[in-house]
């Protein structure tokens, strides 16, 4: 079986291909929401804090990690919420009956 680092690299390379391919041609209007959405996803760093605190010792280390967790949480919840707000602007409302139907000029 391959060592941890090689396994990690294999996963890293595959994830890179997924990332490159998933964004093919995006309409301009979705650039900002998409940036915001990917931004929320890297809030996954929160997990790093949750893992790191399990084997940290000393006040300073724990203090740093608590801040990291707070930062990560802001990144995650803020990111997803903001993205949702942006996107809700794009939602197609139930088409109102078109007004242009009675030409009278």
């Amino acid at each position, binding site marked *: 079986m391959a060592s*941890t680092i090689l396994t990690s690299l294999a996963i890293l390379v595959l*994830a890179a291909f997924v990332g490159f391919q998933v964004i093919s041609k995006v309409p301009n209007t979705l650039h900002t929401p998409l940036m915001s959405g990917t931004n929320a996803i890297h809030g996954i760093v929160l997990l790093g804090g949750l893992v790191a605190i399990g084997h940290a010792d000393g006040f300073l280390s724990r203090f740093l990690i608590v801040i990291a967790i707070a930062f990560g949480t802001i990144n995650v919840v803020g990111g997803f*919420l903001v993205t949702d707000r942006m996107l809700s602007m794009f939602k197609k409302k139930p088409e109102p009956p078109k007004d242009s139907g009675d030409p009278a000029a």
Partner: protein
Amino acid sequence: MIATAFFQDVDFITAAYIVAFGMFISGLAKLTSPTTAVQGNKIAAVGMGIAVVATLLNPDLGGSDFALIAVGLIIGTVIGVPSARNVKMTAMPQMVALFNGVGGGAVALIAWAEFRTAHGDLSADLSVGIPLVFAAIVGSISFWGSNVAFGKLQGLISGSPIKIPAGLFVNIALLAIAIASGVAILLGSTSEGLFVLILVSAAVLGNLAVLPIGGADMPVVISTLNAFTGLSAAAAGIALDNYALIVAGMIVGASGTILTDQMAKAMNRSIGSVLLGGFGGEAPAAGNDPTRPGETGGAVRSTSAADVAILLAYARLVVVVPGYGLAVAQAQHTVREMAKALEKKGIEVKYAIHPVAGRMPGHMNVLLAEADVPYDQLKEMDDINGEFSRTDVSLVIGANDVTNPDARLKADSPIYGMPILNVDESKQIIVLKRSMASGFAGIENPLFYNDKTQMLFGDAKASVAEITSELGQL
């Protein structure tokens, strides 16, 4: 007991991670299409929830750890939720910058804490040490760079480029210091001061790299730093042997790079030219005297709302060209009212959406969608440009740079080469703005001196409301 052990099993947690990153990927895929984007964001969010819960099952976590975790989660939620909820639509880009920054900061802090946990000995296992040093450098750059971007967009720092003397040289030197300190640690030094030096030099680098870039280019900068944070998260994932971090971080790193490239192209910029500092910035307005003859020699003609209303009433096709000023004036609902009045009279109304009108991509779409403008009336630049020649009246509402014919004609113009809306081809042009002040690029707009152009000075919302009421009286 057995059940607990099962759920706390590394394999169970990994399985949950696989589910989580599967949801990130499908969520992201859905985010690239307007019809599925909302759903995609939700799927990704649920994936995140699964990843977090699974991580909390980690048996290494003791009681005091949970207390600290709770503190962090609560602080983060208390800060994050209200800011996301209350931010104004037009302030979204800087909000994203802020959220991106804290992500990078978290990575840098975790790297520091891990360094301390290893008692500074990163030379023992380079497959952990190298990613940690990488995470520290890139995370710190991203944190500080994003904060500067936030400051610029929020107006806390001047949006115009702040030139650093010998900037490129200084930046390279800072990067060299950070890398050299990292190498020293990887070779066996256990000095915490050296690690802090990595963080500090990267921090200064993050500041100096973004300060010289003009506010107009900030969306591209934020997108670049977004990809950086993703990469740093992936590096942290390698160091912590955590698949969820590796996959999610790397996907953002890769897709963020593609996205940055596409954004830069939409604004007719290259990533390289942006990061090396560009034009942009709120340069002083070129002229403020409404009747001063323009470079083109023509004089400016000013008109009244009543006259505009008559002109519109006899048109067959009216194209509304919205710009940043419409957003500032919050005139979207008023414009929609006017359009309804015109449509009642059988006049066709379309909206010409330039990809970089406003201050963020999609800015105009967001605004007009908020005012319930039917989706099929919004025309992208390439679709509408052919139609201006048969347009009776173009109504330019708070737009400026995106209509500037110099981009097509004047090779020494700073915006030369940027694709623009060919408003000058239409039969009549009405421009609604408050003065002769220039727009974002800080340059004159010959369109205003065109023989076919008439200016209606005043706040966009007030002017449009006036036009609408005049229309009602016809």
